[in-house]
C-alpha cells in the first residue's frame, strides 16, 4: 500500500516545523521514543506537543529546542520526579520560552475524544474548581435538562499523532493490547497518524481478531517497523520498562550541560534505531524481553 517507510522519511514528511504532535498516548507505555529522537535529529522546531503524561519524552524535546508549546496534564519523569528541561524552559526560558496549555488527564482525553467524534466540545464534571480550568480551552456549559453547570472541554485536533503499537499491517491497521490510554482517540482526532510497531503482520492477522483493532489504516500515513521503538518505555508482550534509563536520565540532565551530553550520546551520535539498539547492547536488551509466553485464551470467531 505504499505506507511502509523509514523513520527518517516518515518524520521528514509528516512532521513539519510548527506542527501539533500527539505522542505518549498510551501513557507510560508505548511511548514512541524512536520517533521523537528522530524529530530531535531532524531539528524540528516550534512543535506543539500533545499528550497526557509523556514520561521524559516531552522533557527531551523541550530541552532539544523542538517545542514551542506543550498541551499536557503532566510533564516530568514518572519514576524519578521533575523534568529538568521542562523546569528550565518554564522557569528560565532555557533553551526557549514554552507555552503550556494545561489539562488534567481526563480533560485531555476528552479534548481528543471530542475531535475524534467530530464534536467541538465534550462536557464533564471534572476539574471544576481547579485553577487551570480557567484557561480559554475550558468554558462553562449548562445541561439543558437539569440546569447543572458542567465544564466544556474544547476539541483538540493534532496535525499528527505518533503511536507505537504491537503489530500493524502494511496499511496501518493496528492491534494493540494492554492499557490503551488515549491511543484510539488520538488516532481519530489527528489529521494523520505515524505508526511505529514491533511487528509488521499480514492483513489476515488483523482480520482474524477485529476486536483488537485500535487504529484504522485509513487514519495512517506511514507505518514504520521499529522493534523496541518504545524503549525505555514498555510495550506489553515485547519490551519491559528500562527503569534505570529513566533514573540515569534524571541524574544526568540536572544541568543543561548534562542534558546536552545525554542528547549527544543517545540521539545526535546515533544515526539509526539499530545503532541505538547496538548502543544499549544485548546485555541491557536481553533482560528487557518478556520471559514467559502468556497467551490469551482462544476464542472462536467462526460464522
Amino acid at each position: 500500500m505504499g505506507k511502509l517507510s523509514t523513520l527518517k522519511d516518515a518524520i521528514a514528511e509528516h512532521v513539519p516545523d510548527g506542527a501539533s504532535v500527539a505522542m505518549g498516548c498510551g501513557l507510560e507505555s508505548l511511548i514512541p521514543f524512536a520517533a521523537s529522537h528522530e524529530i530531535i535529529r531532524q531539528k524540528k522546531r516550534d512543535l506543539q506537543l500533545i499528550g497526557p503524561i509523556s514520561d521524559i519524552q516531552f522533557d527531551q524535546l523541550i530541552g532539544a529546542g523542538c517545542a514551542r508549546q506543550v498541551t499536557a496534564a503532566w510533564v516530568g519523569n514518572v519514576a524519578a520526579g521533575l523534568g529538568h528541561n521542562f523546569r528550565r524552559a518554564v522557569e528560565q526560558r532555557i533553551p526557549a520560552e514554552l507555552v503550556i496549555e494545561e489539562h488534567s488527564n481526563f480533560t485531555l482525553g476528552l479534548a481528543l475524544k471530542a475531535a475524534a467524534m467530530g464534536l467541538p466540545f465534550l462536557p464533564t464534571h471534572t476539574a471544576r474548581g481547579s485553577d487551570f480550568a480557567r484557561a480559554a480551552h475550558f468554558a462553562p456549559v449548562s445541561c439543558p435538562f437539569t440546569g447543572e453547570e458542567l465544564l466544556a472541554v474544547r476539541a483538540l485536533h493534532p496535525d499528527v499523532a505518533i503511536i507505537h503499537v504491537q503489530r500493524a499491517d502494511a496499511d496501518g491497521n493496528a492491534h494493540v493490547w494492554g492499557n490503551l490510554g488515549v491511543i484510539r482517540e488520538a488516532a481519530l482526532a489527528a489529521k494523520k497518524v505515524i505508526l511505529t510497531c514491533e511487528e509488521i503482520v499480514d492483513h489476515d492477522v488483523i482480520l482474524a481478531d477485529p476486536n483488537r483493532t485500535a487504529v484504522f489504516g485509513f487514519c495512517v500515513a506511514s507505518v514504520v517497523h521499529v522493534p523496541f521503538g518504545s524503549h525505555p518505555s514498555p510495550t506489553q508482550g515485547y519490551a519491559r520498562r528500562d527503569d534505570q534509563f529513566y533514573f540515569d536520565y534524571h541524574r544526568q540532565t540536572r544541568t543543561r550541560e548534562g542534558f546536552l551530553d545525554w542528547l549527544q550520546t543517545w540521539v545526535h551520535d546515533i544515526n539509526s534505531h539499530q545503532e541505538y539498539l547496538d548502543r544499549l547492547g544485548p546485555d541491557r536488551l536481553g533482560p528487557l524481553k518478556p520471559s514467559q509466553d502468556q497467551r490469551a485464551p482462544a476464542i472462536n470467531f467462526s460464522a
Partner: protein
Amino acid sequence: MKARAAYTVRELMVIAAAREIRDGELAFVGMRLPLLGFAVAKELYAPRAIGVFENGIVRDWPALAPIFTMSDPPNVARALYCGGLIDVMGLLQSGRVQLGFIGGAEIDRFGNVNTHWVRERQKRTRLPGSGGAADIATLAERCIVIMSQERRRFPPRVEFVTSPGYGEGAAWRERARLKGGGPSRVITTMATFSFDPESREMILSTVHPGATVADVQRETGWPLRVAANIGTTAPPSAEELAVLRKYDPNGIWTS
C-alpha cells in the same frame, strides 16, 4: 519519628492508607504508597476491593512484581480489564469509584492541593502538573491525600489549586456543585488529618507514634485545629507488616 526498629514511617503510612479502603470499593490507587496499601487491604480486610488506574487498567489483585509506573507490564498482565483512559475516568465520574489517592507538593488548610507551582525564597519552581489528580480530587466520593509533613508544604493557602479540596471552606464545594465528596483524610509522615464536616478545616486526628502535636504544629503553616479525641495512629500489626513486605521486600518504597 524513629520507629525504625519495628517499622518505618512509610510503612505506617501505607498501612494507614490500606485501612481507608473498604471491602468491595473501587479505588484509584495511584502508585507507590497507596498502591502498596491496596495490596495490603486486598489481602487483609478488603478482599473484593478493585484498583483502578488512569491508563485504562482495572485490577482485582495487586501485581506482585515491583513497578515504577502503572503501565509497567506486571500491572497490565492478568488485569481484570484493559481499556482507555476515558473509560476508567468515566467510572470515576459516574460515581462507581468511591475512593482515590493523590499526592501533592502543597496542601492548605481546606485540603486544596497544588502540584503546579511552588515558591521558595522568591524562586518559583514549576512542578509537573495535575496528571489525574484534579480528576480524582474533583470526582471521587472520598479523596485521600498523601503528604510529607513539612511547613513549606502546608501553607495556609496554596498558590495554585491543582486539585480542589474544600476551596475556601464551609459549603464551597456544595456551592460550586463539585461532584465528588472532597478530601476525607490526609496521611502524612507525622500524622493523619480529617476535615470538619461544617467548616471543612483540616483537623489533626492522630499523630504517629513518636511524634507530638507540637511536632506536627511546627511543620504546619497555620494554627492547627486538633480533634477532641486526638489519639495515636494505630501502628501496623505484625500481619500487616508481613503482607506489606511481601510486596515491597527490598523497601524500595517504604525504607
